[in-house]
């Protein structure tokens, strides 16, 4: 098992990865790079969503719900970016060693959180509608 220091080192010095295993076909590395970029865009979209909620959503009946929503979205965005980095490192390492690509529950967790958030928002919107 690699320790926290080993993981940190791989995160911040990916060139160290080049010392293990063999370099795969460059097209596989480019595919991993595009997957990483797609996750980064997912994180950026969550952050943009948080910033948009903070300035374009009208004040809700529940105090600070709007701000809480914005904060949660931006924390998710940052977490997705860190996970993108970790996933890129794991995939690169697996490809260099000829191992299976890593499995992850992260996409499922993210999807469930988005669904829960949407259901909560629908409930809030409906409650506000009855208020009028």
């Amino acid at each position, binding site marked *: 098992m690699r320790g926290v220091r080993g993981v940190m080192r791989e*995160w*911040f*010095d*990916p*060139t160290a990865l*080049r010392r293990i295993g063999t*370099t795969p*076909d*460059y*097209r596989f*590395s*480019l*595919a991993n*790079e*595009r997957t*990483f*970029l*797609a996750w*980064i*865009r997912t*994180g*950026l*979209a969550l*952050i*943009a969503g*948080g*910033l*948009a909620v*903070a*300035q374009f959503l009208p004040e809700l009946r529940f105090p600070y719900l709007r*701000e809480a929503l*914005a*904060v949660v979205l*931006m*924390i998710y*965005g*940052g977490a997705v*970016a*860190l996970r*993108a*980095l970790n996933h*890129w*490192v794991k995939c*690169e390492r697996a490809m260099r060693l000829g191992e299976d690509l890593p499995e992850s529950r992260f996409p499922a967790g993210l999807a469930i959180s988005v669904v829960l958030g949407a259901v909560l928002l629908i409930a809030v919107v409906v409650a506000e509608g009855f208020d009028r």
Partner: protein
Amino acid sequence: MTGPTPARDPGLQPERTRLAWRRTVLASTVVALLAVRLVLLRPTPLAGVAGTMLLAGWITLLVLSGRRASTLAAPVPPPLGRAVPVLALVTVGFAGAGLALVATP
């Protein structure tokens, strides 16, 4: 891994990767514009610091993407190195700057 290097990848992988970088820069531009709007609405000293951080991060992404576009033009593009952690950290920095902008009165 021997043999002649193909002149052009029929799957257009370098081009797709270059376009993925461009989309990422575009997404970060949206984040930067939304944040700048918040800074202008609430111009506090903290907001100024957050806005400056955001602009620095955005310029870093522009530079990274430009550099990667030139290395992708090689017949066999080299693997990514430190651009990966830098891009991830800039995104985390965007989140932090956004939190500072939203969570302060």
